[in-house]
C-alpha cells in the first residue's frame, strides 16, 4: 500500500474558493470592497480633480459626462458649494472613514481577544475583574463618552479613534471569553494536554483556530459599525475638520444645499451604505462558512 502524496492544503483551498464563488452576494461584496479599498489607497491616481480645488464659477453644477471647459475632465458626480469635484472628494474622503473603521476594529480586536482569552481560559479572579469592567462598559452611554473624548481632545480623526477604541474591545472580549470558556473544558483541550502540548500551543493552535470564525465575523461587523459611527460624528462636525474630508463630513457640509444640489449628499451616503452592506454580507458569509458544525464534505 502506498501513500498518495495529495497536497492537502491546496485541495482545501480550492473547495473553499469554489464555495465562495457560489455565494453570489459574498463574492460581489468582496469585489466591491476590494475596489473601494484600492481606490482609497491610490486615491490621487483615481481622482480627476484636486479634492480641495475650488471653482466658484462652476458651483453646484449637477452630475454630467460633458466636460465644463474644453479638455477638462467631466464632473461625473457634479460639484459642491465651492465648485469642488464631488467624485474626487468622495475618493479622497474614504481614507479617513476606512482608516477609522479598520484601526478601531483591529486594535479593539487585539486588546479584546487577548483579555477575553485570558479571562475565559484562566477563569477565577482574572475572569471576574475583566468581565466586571466589560459589564460596566456595556451599560455606559457610549455615544456620550465618545463625545466627551471629542470635547476634551478637540475634534479630529485622532480623537475619534481614541474615543471608539475605548469601547470597541469589549465586544471582542465577550466573544473570545465565551468561546474560550466553552472549549476550555472540552475533551479536545484535555487531549492536547495529554499529548504534552503546552498552554501556548493549546491556546494558539486549538482554541484560537476554533474561535477564529466568529471573531472574524465580529471583526468585519465592527469595521462596519465604526464606519457608521465615524459618519455620524463627522456629520455633526466632530470628526475630521475641513479642508480634510470624510464621507460623513461631505454629507454634513452638503446638507444645507439639499434643495438645490442633491448630488452632494446622495453619493457619499450611498458609499457609506454600500460599504457597510458589503461588510455585513461578507461577515455573514464568514459566519456560515466557517461554522465548525457546518463544514460540508
Amino acid at each position, binding site marked *: 500500500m502506498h501513500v498518495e502524496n495529495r497536497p492537502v492544503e491546496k485541495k482545501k483551498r480550492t473547495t473553499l474558493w469554489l464555495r465562495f464563488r457560489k455565494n453570489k452576494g459574498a463574492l460581489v461584496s468582496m469585489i466591491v470592497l476590494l475596489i473601494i479599498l484600492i481606490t482609497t489607497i491610490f486615491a490621487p491616481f483615481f481622482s480627476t480633480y484636486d479634492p480641495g480645488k475650488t471653482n466658484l464659477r462652476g458651483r453646484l453644477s449637477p452630475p454630467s459626462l460633458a466636460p465644463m471647459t474644453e479638455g477638462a475632465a467631466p464632473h461625473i458626480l457634479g460639484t459642491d458649494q465651492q465648485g469642488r469635484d464631488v467624485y474626487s472628494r468622495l475618493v479622497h474622503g474614504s481614507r479617513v472613514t476606512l482608516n477609522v473603521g479598520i484601526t478601531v476594529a483591529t486594535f479593539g480586536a487585539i486588546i479584546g481577544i487577548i483579555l477575553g482569552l485570558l479571562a475565559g481560559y484562566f477563569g477565577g479572579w482574572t475572569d471576574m475583574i475583566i468581565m466586571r469592567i466589560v459589564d460596566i462598559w456595556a451599560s455606559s452611554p457610549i455615544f*456620550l463618552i465618545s463625545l466627551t473624548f471629542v470635547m476634551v481632545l478637540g475634534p479630529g480623526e485622532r480623537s475619534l479613534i481614541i474615543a471608539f477604541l475605548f469601547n470597541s474591545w469589549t465586544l471582542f472580549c465577550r466573544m473570545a471569553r465565551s468561546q474560550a470558556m466553552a472549549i476550555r473544558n472540552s475533551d479536545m483541550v484535555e487531549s492536547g494536554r495529554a499529548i504534552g502540548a503546552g498552554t501556548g500551543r493549546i491556546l494558539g493552535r486549538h482554541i484560537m483556530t476554533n474561535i477564529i470564525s466568529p471573531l472574524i465575523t465580529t471583526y468585519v461587523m465592527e469595521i462596519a459599525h465604526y464606519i457608521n459611527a465615524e459618519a455620524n460624528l463627522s456629520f455633526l462636525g466632530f470628526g475630521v475638520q475641513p479642508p480634510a474630508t470624510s464621507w460623513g463630513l461631505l454629507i454634513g457640509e452638503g446638507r444645507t444645499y439639499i434643495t438645490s444640489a442633491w448630488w452632494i449628499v446622495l453619493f457619499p451616503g450611498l458609499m457609506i*451604505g454600500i460599504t*457597510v452592506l458589503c461588510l455585513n454580507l461578507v461577515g455573514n458569509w464568514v459566519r456560515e462558512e466557517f461554522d465548525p458544525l457546518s463544514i460540508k464534505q
Partner: protein
Amino acid sequence: MGKYILQRLAFTVVVIFCISIMVFVITHVVGNPVDIMLPLTATEQQRIELTQRLGLDQPLHVQLITYLKDLARLNFGVSWWQRVACEEVIMKFIIPTAFLVTLSCLFALIIGVPLGIISAYRPGSLLDRTITILSLSGVCLPPFWIGLMLMLVFAVNLGWFYTSGFGAWKHLILPMITLACNPAGHVAQIVRFEMLQQLNSLYAITARAKGVSEVTLLFKHCLKNIMVPTVTMLGVDYVALMAGGSATVEVVFGWPGFGNLITGTIENLDFPLLQAEVFFVAVFVCIINLLIDFMYTAFDPRIRF
C-alpha cells in the same frame, strides 16, 4: 426574585458610580478644560482666573470629592451655555426626544414584525429577498442620510411634510420614519431568523400534524416565542437612540431634542451640562436594561429567579 432585584439594583449603582468616575477622569485627567475653553492667545492671567473659577487649582482628589458630593446631591450646577440649572435644561430637551424615539420604536415594531413573518413564511421567494434587502438597507444606510433623502422627496419636492421644526404632525412623520428604519430592519431580521427556527422546530411539525391551521400556528404559537428576542433587540435600539443615537436625525429635522442638546453642549464646551447628561443617560440606560431583564419573566415562563 427579591434578592435578584436587589442585586441588580446594587450593581446599577456601582455602574453609575463607575461611569461618573470615568467622565471625571476623561474631563480632568486626560484633558484640561482651561486649554480648550480659552483661545490660544489667552494671557496667563486669564488662564489662572478661569482655573480658579472652575476650581481646577485644587488637588485632584479634592476635586473628585467635590464632584462626587455634588452628584450624590443631584446638584449638577449651572449650564455655562444655557445659563440655567443643568437638570432643567435636560428635562426641557429630553421630552421631545423621548416622544419621538418611543413613537419610532413602536412604528418599527409595527412595520418590522409583519415583514419578518412574511419573509420567514416563504423563505427564498422574491418577496423574502426584497424584504431582506430592505431591512439590510435600513440597518446599513446612515440614518441622517435617509432623513435627508426623505426630506428631499417628501418635503421639498412633494411638499407633503415640513422640512424641519416641531409642533404639528407634519413635523413628526419624517423624523419618526427615519429613526424607525434602523430598528425596523433589526426587528425584521430577528423575527425572520427566529420564525424560521420556530417553524422548523419539532413542536411546529407536531402542531401541523395535529391539524393546527397555519395562521394559528404562526400567530398563537410562534409569535409568542419570538417576543423575547424581538423585544430585547428593540430595547437595545431604544436605549441607543435615547442615548444620543437620534442626534443626527434631530439635527437634520431641527427637532428640539436631546440629540440637538448634546451637539450644542459639545460645541459650547459646556462641561457641567455634559456631566449631567452622561449621568442622566447612564441612569436611563440602566433602568431600561433592568426593565428588559424583568420583561423576560413576563414573556418566558422558563425564566424564573
